[in-house]
């Protein structure tokens, strides 16, 4: 066998899984090499291509797992619809090439800034077909908006990083593209003001669809607040939000910054990046920890989801050595464990060869349940073994 398998049909994928005796690395477009990746033969879904159904009037799209996000977005845009959870493109910060696929987005539950308003990738997945570790083709969910028929394995498959099965087809809910958007930039002095500002915005009835904060060049912070909808409505909400957020700092309307916020394209040169999910106000505790541990060398930070999603980044010069990097990693995961949440090491050249948990370690009961679930779906342990550790 070659070192890569590219089945072109579900049947070929089934055959490949049945024939293999060794673990496989399951891959879509290969743009998200996150987690603990053991060297193994690659099984790629990238040739399982094609949109099998698209009904704009029903807001439903079904496609094979290897269909590129680019193709899906092109087709949706023609009907003025979109993937509302705006999946992040990881290629910049992970320095990968290739094309992100639908299967990859669902397997990694990849969302973007609008997650705070409309939900995550997992909330838009209506149905899945996948092949489990024994080569069985299984389906769950369907193509309709509401479905409580049996257990929701669509959620379980979303974000399971190919460890439970190899996705072959996904049905998605799609939404209309808003007529227009506007983004306010509230220039605040501290991280605490930023979190308070985003909280205040999200606590208004103005349907905020993005609330992120980036470090500004002058040492302050830009809290970005997005509203979307019909022109008159957007104008109205911009006016109302401006009034209410002025207490936090100077407010401007800025050009659409969300592609950069979503993809962290400005962080392409960083050595190490963590992605952390916390209760939004707890983000300040994590920032305080970083300030304490890495004060002299500094660090990069971006908040999204009103503060609930924290991106931490380090340039190579901001870490003394692998030992120091490892200590930071453990300190971050320890604080996050204590607060409730999760921290994932997305990428790190410096820590590449270190033994560590890329994903947040789980409590003993959830760990046991997760392992037992994997044994049921993949009794031979051949699907991305250890990937989520």
């Amino acid at each position, binding site marked *: 066998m070659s070192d890569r398998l590219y089945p072109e049909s579900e049947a070929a994928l089934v055959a490949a899984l049945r024939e293999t005796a060794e673990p496989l690395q399951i891959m879509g477009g290969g743009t998200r090499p996150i987690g603990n990746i053991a060297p193994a033969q690659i099984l790629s879904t990238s040739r399982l291509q094609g949109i099998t159904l698209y009904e704009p009037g029903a807001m439903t799209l079904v496609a094979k797992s290897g269909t590129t996000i680019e193709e899906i977005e092109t087709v949706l845009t023609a009907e003025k619809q979109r993937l509302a959870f705006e999946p992040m493109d990881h290629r910049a910060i992970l320095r990968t090439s290739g094309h992100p696929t639908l299967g990859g987005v669902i397997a990694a539950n990849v969302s973007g800034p609008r997650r705070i308003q409309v939900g995550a990738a997992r909330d838009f997945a209506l149905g899945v077909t996948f092949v489990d570790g024994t080569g069985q083709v299984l389906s769950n969910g369907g193509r309709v908006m509401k479905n409580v028929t049996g257990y929701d394995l669509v959620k379980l498959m979303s974000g399971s990083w190919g460890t439970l099965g190899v996705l072959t087809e996904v049905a998605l809910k799609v939404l209309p593209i808003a007529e227009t958007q506007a983004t306010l930039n509230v220039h605040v002095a501290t991280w605490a003001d930023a979190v308070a500002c985003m909280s205040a915005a999200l606590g208004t009835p103005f349907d905020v669809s993005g609330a992120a904060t980036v470090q500004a060049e002058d040492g302050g912070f830009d809290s970005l607040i997005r509203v979307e909808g019909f022109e008159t*409505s957007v104008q109205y909400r911009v006016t109302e939000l401006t009034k209410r957020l002025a207490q936090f700092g100077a407010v401007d309307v800025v050009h659409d910054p969300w592609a950069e916020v979503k993809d962290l394209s400005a962080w392409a040169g960083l050595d190490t990046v963590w992605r952390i999910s916390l209760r939004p*106000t707890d983000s300040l505790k994590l920032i305080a920890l970083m300030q304490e541990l890495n004060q002299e060398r500094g660090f990069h930070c971006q908040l999204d989801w009103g503060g609930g999603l924290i991106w931490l980044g380090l340039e190579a010069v901001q870490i003394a050595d692998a030992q120091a990097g490892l200590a930071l990693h453990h300190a971050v995961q320890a604080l996050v464990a204590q607060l409730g949440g999760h921290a994932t090491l997305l990428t790190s050249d410096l820590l590449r060869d270190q033994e560590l948990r890329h994903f947040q370690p789980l409590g003993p009961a959830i760990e046991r349940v997760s392992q037992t679930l994997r044994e049921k779906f993949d009794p031979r342990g051949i699907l991305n073994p250890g990937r989520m550790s």
Partner: protein
Amino acid sequence: MEMPQPNSEILSKKAKIAAALRAVLPYDAVIDDPSETRAYECDALTAYRCPPMIAVLPSTTQEVSDILKICHREGVPVVPRGSGTSLAGGALPTADCVILGVAKMNNVLETDYENRLIRVQSGRTNLSVSGAVEEEDFFYAPDPSSQLACAIAGNIAMNSGGAHCLKYGVTTNNLMGVTLVMMDGEIVEIGGGYLDAPGLDILGVICGSEGQLGVVTEATLRILPKPEGARPVMIAFDSNEVAGACVADIIKAGVLPVAIEFMDRPIIEICESFAKAGYPDCEALLIVEVEGSEAEIQDQLGRISVIAQKHNPVELRQSQSAAESAAIWLGRKSAFGAVGQVADYMCLDGTIPVSALPEVLRRIKELSEHYGLRVGNVFHAGDGNMHPLIMFNANKEGDLELCEAMGADVLRLCVEVGGCLTGEHGVGIEKRDLMEDQYTAEDLDIQMAVKDVFDPGWLLNPSKVFPLSVSQSRRAS
């Protein structure tokens, strides 16, 4: 509806089990007198009844854990119960079971407006969750019709929806975390005040698992700021097909109302004579609700009117006042009660692709004629979640069976056109035996394998969701 034979060995241990439960619970939290257990003999699917062996009403997570440990040790089946409003028989007891009711567990544990969440005990009713955050102008979005009575525990078990989920999603999209007690009594925290799972999305599979994986005692729920205002428009058509086409056009135009409700002629007539909502004489009626500021509401309703006018509506009436809005909704919200005044009925909730609406309505009408049973349709059209109400006479011999047979045909029709058996009520016992029409044996087996992980002895709500013949070997083990 077949239920497994009660286990005589368990029944013979009733006194011992009750005594063990009384050792860990206040005396009045254990109900074992047959005259009192009768109160738990059914849920809102009243056609099926069976008093449980014992009912328990714990007040804390620890008490739930203690109860489950005892039942686990003694091999007693446990049927969790929220408020007993399931339309699918989700809380129907067996004669040898312990009913675990969470009704006493109704406290608010934490409200956090800054982070837009609330943590409650799971016995709290849906509407009172919104009630707890109302003074700060927040609300909890999922709004099942039974929201005055139904408990969050049941909402999580069934992944309940409601009229407004077109915009806000269903329970699973608004649930951030739970405290789950496993069948062996272990207490587990899943999720919390943060978004998305650290590992496998266990929370996602707990939600909608019909009380078969564990007992949810506490829940962290997302709360949202209330919109500034909301208003419906009522649009009447002279055919179901045209109304269906109008729904698709509204969605395609990029207007995303918070609700699009659909009623057909039988329901319009019954509701009108019951609620006097001022509904016009027509074949199909849409109630479309939008939210926002006054200007935003006017703007959206204007766009919807333009779309609707292209379909030559019989009447289009924008609500001009709060009273008029209330009247428009009153008819819709009293639909089930109004039908209940004129007949016994069975409420189905199959979901179909919106595009299949005209075909499905036509074929339901044919089935209605074939079975000689009247059917009314009232449903959430935006997401294709049908609610055919099949009317029958419970006092007429054979009518219930006829109604069940017709209901099964309607649900098979939903599956045939690409939909599913249940959109928001759950499988319970009601749709249990139709699961093989939607799923292959392998698809069902992997779902049952998930239950094996959480509840290897199949003691939690064991006779639901999966056809008895399919789950037989697992339940017997």
